[in-house]
């Protein structure tokens, strides 16, 4: 069955405590090549049938309104897996 991937990241201006914690851990462990880490979410939505334009439109709405919080996050991509 087709899978649609939605990716959500914290907005650039917004504090990302999770990314900050990971970045700190990497530095402490000696990985010093990275100047910053941000941590977001990746959703995989399995579609029951073929991926129609209607479904893609629905995914867009779902991504904006349910999978992300527009106040603090951006939807950075919506793609079909393997497509």
């Amino acid at each position, binding site marked *: 069955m087709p899978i649609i991937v939605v990716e959500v990241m914290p907005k650039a*201006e*917004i*504090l*990302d*405590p999770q990314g900050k*914690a990971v970045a700190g851990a990497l530095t402490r462990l000696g990985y010093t090549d990275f100047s910053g880490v941000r941590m977001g979410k990746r959703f995989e939505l399995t579609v029951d049938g073929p991926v129609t334009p209607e479904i893609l439109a629905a995914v867009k709405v779902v991504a904006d309104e349910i999978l992300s*919080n527009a*106040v*603090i996050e951006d939807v950075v991509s919506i793609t079909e897996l393997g497509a």
Partner: protein
Amino acid sequence: MSTHVADTVENAIATPDKEQPYAALGLKPDEYAQIREILGRRPTSGELAMYSVMWSEHCSYKSSKMYLRQFGQKVTAKMKEKLMVGMGENAGVVDVGEGWAVTFKVESHNHPSYIEPFQGAATGVGGIVRDIISMGARPVAIMDQLRFGAIDHPDTARVVNGVVGGISFYGNCLGLPNIGGETYFDSVYQGNPLVNALSVGVLRHEDLHLANASGVGNKIVLFGARTGGDGIGGASILASDSFDAAGPTKRPAVQVGDPFAEKVLIECCLELYRLGLVEGIQDLGAAGISCATSELAANGDGGMIVHLEEVLLRDPTLTAEEILMSESQERMMAVVEPGKLDAFLAVVAKWDVETSVLGEVTDTGRLIIHHFGEEIVNVDPSTVAVDGPVYERPVAYPLWLDKLQADSASGLPRATTGEELREQVIRLVASPNLADKSFITDQYDYFVMGNTALSFPDDAGMIRVDEESGLGFAIATDANGRYCQLDPYAGAQLALAEAFRNVAVSGAVPVAVTDCLNFGSPENPEVMWQFKQAVEGLADGCLELEIPVTGGNVSFYNQTGDQPIFPTPVVGVLGIIDDVARRIPSAWQDEGNNIYLLGYTRDELDGSAWAGTIHDHLGGLPPVLDLSTEMDLASLLQGAAIESLVLSAHDLSDGGLAQALAESVMRFGVGARVWLNDIIERDGVDATAALFSESTARVLVSVDREDDVRFVGLCNARNYPVLRIGVTDQRGDEAVLDVQGQFVIPVSEIRERSNETLPKYFG
């Protein structure tokens, strides 16, 4: 590095006619003119940023100041006895004995919590906790006072789950027990929920710290999280104006909280205090660096030089003005002696906290801020932080109030049969405001720290301060917006009395008060009247009870469109108990104890939960209050606690005796057999009033049969009305609440109806 060209003092002198966006920053034309007069020139954009945030309603208290003065004026010698730090500091501090002190304060985060409920509420907890740290105390507990729109409104679940999730996330992650709060639903809060948070801290007397920058040459150090672009305009735009008026900002108005950073900051600060490395300290909340620098300077020797480029930034594109206004969370500013700076930096490094030295204390009387060598701010700090505008806003008695007060609930139809009464009891138990709040409180940790002697659903939260002696404090908060709508003076006093009573039933002695005054727009004369009445009521009430207001918070502009919320002054009362082992829980745990009702019942149903839930009615006058009776009741309960005469004590408030009985049987599943005849006969009321009246100064207690004579003797000796109204009955599956001659309800049924309401809407 910032590419923005700073507006320097020199530039401001050279370009006196430059137009400045003061209105967009929330300043009125006359306020802008006042700033120009103070400076003798136009402000630089940095100065404008500072004045605009510091002169906002939220930071300057410009509409409320003239009323709040009463809290400092209506005081007796006794009220000052235990007060180590009063109004005006980050939080009040009370001497609780044995060399210990307690500091506490309640604050609002209403507007941010509507826009982004999770982060708004989370950062609300973070902010109030930093106030407590800045007094030199270890935070030991939090509470949350919440008011939401109608439970069945489509937007309410978003707000409830966000707010509760945010408080749970931040408070639990910080390791602070949540020991109580309030949850109310009413459509007046639909577009403007109230999210108040309270924190309590504990310190040894010698650890007291204040926010002042003294000692010329001492270093000004900023530590904690980096400064970012979040929350800019939060102070002036979010808190000073209603949402629809909020202008566009390019920076996000919301802030994201990092409780982990704050937890580390707490431990770091406590270690700094322990080692004596800090002379003065201030948390960064609303108005960020603007507030911290100007308040520290104004409260100290008056002068300070700050090099703004030293501020560690999360976002290198921030302008100087934005750095001054940023409300990034989890930051503190300390004043450190130069000789102790290395030791200070070592502690901060141990905790992996980022730090930078911004400048030092001077004797110039001026707060001077440089940005890359250019002077962008040169002000008298007290004109920013202390001597802001003060308004005597127009006040007008609301014309609708006479009609509302005339519309008493006493004429509403009453139940005529036991069966009808039973149904009403169940409806009240299941109503959103009286239903079980476990759906919320199960998300809060109260075990952490191992000192929680009482917490929800007990009437007060109680924390052990000293593990050896058992010394502790109790705290409860209350507010009844419906009563305040009917009469804000009486309503504020009723809130005070209920919180006072809730502390007293726990066995503690009430000693101090904090408050968070949530109101509509101060520019509405009717709201201003409500505010004036409520503050007067509270100040007069505190004077009569002889317990001081030690600090608090005012939140104006709480309205949806033109519709202000009910006036909602949240009142918190702190009490002391010598040994928490003598705490009194609010429900009975065993069979065969006697149940007594203390106090008289009058036919007082106006504004009650019964009128609201059964008849959708609000009108009339709130219950009569006699604070000297409340004091008698409190001292009676303390006597009983010292002699361990009562097994449980639960105050009667919303929903009256019926709700108190329901809560008492549900708690540990121990039923009760109760009779109303004696109340009805003695007090001349009917069964409806006996069950649902919200008369004040009443408490339900359970007493071991062995202590019966002594307990009744105690009440009689103090001339306090007491009636035996029942006995506790069997526990387990067969447990019932049997109100004799009226109805019988299985405890399981009460529990089910009470428990199902919140999960149904939010689960």
